[in-house]
């Protein structure tokens, strides 16, 4: 079902238009074709839009506008399209979309991007309409042949039926009869009650090839004549290559070429081992540049000073200043560290550059940007840059960047053969685009067990300002304030402001959970502190302020009930709650943790209640929440990138640790049935786990953790009742 060949060589926009032109009256999302031309054309493929192709043999090809990086989006998108098309799901073939913003841009971002947990949210209606429009055309074609009213026909599993006369026709047989028909602009959509596929836990289409070794990731690309390269960029960010002594490296068997660029050195070999040996044999002197003395201490000093400045107001309700001046002012500050993505598939990119063409094999979350960066470097026009988007061995935001493509294309400019550039793990960890450090200062006043005044100052890097400049308006980073400006609690006087502070030396980027990771950690930890101050149970305290958020109240009640909130626990064990409305989903999470006398933490159980609107594939949603929770636990328990003399100190999985399977808690995810539009889910668990765990540790030990990763020394030797 999963057509890897097609994925490797998706159609270019040109071939698409050609295929479309062969179809009577076809439209390609904005590309309306002259009808005379269409009427004369022979119809061999039914392609009513950029997402669907049906040939006369009955092969239904669905074009995937979003990239598959483990989140199951290929299957989910296919389910949405096939639902409205009424195709037989076990016969659909998937194909990765080529780079083409005009056809495949994410409706939210207006470029081809897979991120921010928004694939289903952004494409839910457009894809349903694409499927429904195609189905309507097939019904119309058969109704014409049978000379019946289209309204008397129905469809099921790739066939049109006219029950009154007992006739039926396969979609394949109707392809040639679609010529001259015009797709409806606003086709009727199925009612949710009539969904056959949506809501079912269908098996993912990408799993079989992942368990038999046939799946092709970026790192598996092997174009004929490929050479192998690995690289070292200046270990200090912003530094340059000084001098390279390659006398030893050049003499190693299999080493073909040493490529010295302004900011990096690469070794090209007949195979990867030669390239790696060659790199190790080089003696490189770096010109370290202005960041050569920067350490983590400098980073934190700068961030803490910045957090004392006034920020740009992101939201203001009532009179926060007035409310905060009456009664006891409760204040706390929370801090999050730099994090690397550490995708299991290290950064890599394969490039074949000739005088008039550039072919790229890569896994990217931003396909059109991948193409654009190669065009910029080579000076070739976009249509000369072919990008084969292969499956991704972990994205998490890392592959929203194109630095690996930039470097590979620049190396390829020096190499007279296709070259596959694979970073070592060490290079991958030390030249990431890091989740920024953040500092959150919160203050509040209480009255009658409720919050009456609230101030939240967020200080940190603006990723949006670099990554999507048009979205950075009036000093506000919409990602950095996400889930803080729209805090769900009913607070009469509040103020949220943002201080942009770019850390020295370190490039910053999106990381699974993005802005909400920081804000939900700070808010939900502080809510717990306020509940204790108010002398109230943390669940009851929150619940009393959710009058305007009934969906959140419902998941809170469900999570508390399922987790046995309030049931006694043995000493040294505690439960913690965290709520969030991030990514359009409503989630309550209860963590149960145990802390031993050495300060070691065992997460025993996590219960999440989730309202994410209509669920396309429940199994995928549960897997994404579970995975996100584990990703978040890893960050809370271990994640920190530090720098010394401008260099990242971590290098591989021994010093940048992951939660292991023997440490994985029991995880329960409870889905609330809903008819609301789908929410985002891939990042939610990552946001949920750290505050829930921190609050559980407070319940177990009485130690409040205001910084991640969790410092075990604060917990060691702690006597608890």
């Amino acid at each position, binding site marked *: 079902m999963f057509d890897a060949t097609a994925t490797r060589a998706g159609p270019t926009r040109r071939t698409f238009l050609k295929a479309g032109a062969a179809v009577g009256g076809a439209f390609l999302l904005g590309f309306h074709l002259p009808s005379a031309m269409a009427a004369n054309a022979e119809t061999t493929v039914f392609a009513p839009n950029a997402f669907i192709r049906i040939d006369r043999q009955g092969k239904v090809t669905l074009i995937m506008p979003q990239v598959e990086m483990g989140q199951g989006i290929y299957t989910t998108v296919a389910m949405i399209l096939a639902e409205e098309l009424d195709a037989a799901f076990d016969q659909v073939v998937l194909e990765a979309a080529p780079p083409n913003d005009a056809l495949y841009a994410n409706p939210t971002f207006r470029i081809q991007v897979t991120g921010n947990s928004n694939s289903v949210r952004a494409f839910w209606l457009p894809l349903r309409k694409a499927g429904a429009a195609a189905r309507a055309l097939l019904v119309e074609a058969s109704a014409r042949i049978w000379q019946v009213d289209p309204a008397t026909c129905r469809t099921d599993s790739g066939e049109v039926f006219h029950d009154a006369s007992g006739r039926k026709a396969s979609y394949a047989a109707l392809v040639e009869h679609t010529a001259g028909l015009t797709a409806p602009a606003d086709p009727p959509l199925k009612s949710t009650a009539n969904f056959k596929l949506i809501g079912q836990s269908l098996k993912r289409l990408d799993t079989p090839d992942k368990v038999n*070794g046939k799946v092709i990731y970026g790192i598996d690309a092997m174009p004929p004549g490929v050479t192998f390269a690995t690289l070292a960029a200046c270990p200090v960010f912003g530094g340059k290559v000084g001098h390279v002594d390659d006398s030893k490296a050049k003499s190693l068997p299999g080493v073909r070429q040493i490529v010295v660029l302004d900011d990096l050195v690469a070794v090209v070999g007949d195979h990867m081992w030669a390239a790696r040996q060659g790199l190790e044999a080089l003696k490189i002197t770096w010109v370290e540049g202005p960041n050569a003395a920067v350490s983590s201490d400098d980073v934190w000093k700068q961030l803490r000073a910045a957090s004392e400045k006034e920020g740009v107001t992101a939201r203001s309700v009532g009179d926060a200043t007035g409310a905060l001046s009456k009664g006891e002012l409760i204040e706390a500050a929370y801090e999050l560290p730099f994090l690397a993505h550490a995708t*299991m598939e290290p950064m890599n990119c394969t490039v074949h550059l000739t005088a008039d063409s550039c072919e790229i094999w890569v896994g990217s979350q931003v396909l059109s940007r991948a193409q654009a960066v190669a065009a910029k470097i080579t000076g070739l026009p976009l249509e000369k840059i072919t990008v084969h988007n292969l499956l991704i061995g972990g994205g998490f935001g890392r592959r929203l960047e194109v630095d690996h493509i930039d470097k590979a294309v620049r190396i390829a400019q020096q190499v007279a053969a296709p070259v596959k550039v694979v970073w070592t793990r060490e290079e991958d960890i030390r030249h990431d685009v890091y989740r920024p450090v953040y500092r959150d200062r919160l203050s509040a006043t209480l009255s009658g067990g409720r919050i009456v005044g609230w101030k939240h100052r967020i200080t940190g890097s603006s990723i949006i300002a670099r990554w999507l400049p048009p979205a950075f308006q009036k000093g506000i980073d919409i990602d950095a304030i996400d889930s803080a400006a729209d805090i769900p609690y009913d607070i009469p006087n509040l103020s949220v402001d943002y201080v942009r502070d770019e850390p020295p030396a370190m490039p910053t980027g999106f990381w699974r959970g993005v802005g909400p990771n920081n804000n939900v950690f700070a808010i939900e930890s502080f809510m717990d502190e306020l509940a204790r101050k108010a002398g109230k149970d943390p669940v009851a305290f929150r619940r009393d302020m959710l009058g305007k958020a009934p969906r959140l109240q419902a998941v809170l009640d469900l999570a508390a009930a399922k987790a046995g909130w309030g049931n006694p626990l043995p000493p040294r064990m505690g439960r913690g709650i965290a709520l969030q409305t991030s990514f359009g989903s409503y989630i309550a999470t209860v963590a149960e943790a145990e802390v031993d006398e050495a300060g070691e933490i065992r997460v025993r159980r996590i219960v999440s209640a989730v309202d994410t609107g209509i669920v396309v594939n429940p199994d995928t949603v549960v897997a994404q929440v579970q995975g996100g929770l584990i990703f978040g636990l890893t960050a809370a328990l271990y994640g920190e990138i530090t720098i010394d003399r401008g260099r990242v100190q971590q290098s591989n999985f021994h010093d940048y640790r992951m939660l292991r399977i023997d440490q994985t808690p029991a995880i329960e995810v409870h889905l609330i049935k809903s008819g609301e539009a789908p929410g985002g889910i891939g990042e939610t668990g990552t946001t949920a786990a750290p505050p829930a765990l921190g609050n559980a540790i407070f319940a177990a030990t009485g130690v409040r953790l205001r910084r991640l990763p969790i410092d075990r020394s604060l917990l060691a030797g702690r006597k608890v009742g």
Partner: protein
Amino acid sequence: MERTFELRVNGRIHAITADPATPLLYILRNDLALNGPKFGCGLGECGACTVLIEGMAARACVIPVSGAAGREVTTLEGLGGARSLHPVQQAFIDEQAAQCGYCVNGMIMTAKAFLDRIAHPSEAQIRDALRYNLCRCGTHVEILRAVQRAARLLDMADAGAEPTEAER
């Protein structure tokens, strides 16, 4: 200096000329175009490169080709037959135990070697056996269930019975 080795991989014999220190992983991926084993860390820390050598799980990124020569090497591609999946692979499909799927090679190969040794493991034994294989997506819950299911499937295969959908 380069030497020629006889390498037995998935039942086929290959003559490989390479530096004896070359990690087996690069020979499998670059020379034999076997993409099942993955490069993850290069230090034997993540397990993505796991293969079987004489039935034992081994980290191909740190085993030199000289150490694998003359011994039977099995990769993910050689685990099932030409037409069928190995029960461990089937169990990973049944339990949907792959997200990005990059770690799955190592998980399946490690589980296969483990279940050959311990046919009826406890949950704790499975967790212990797989603790040195890293998964970044967080598929741990499904992977654990897949190995439990694989143990049942292997049991039934040993008994000569075709499992029904429900039994799986």
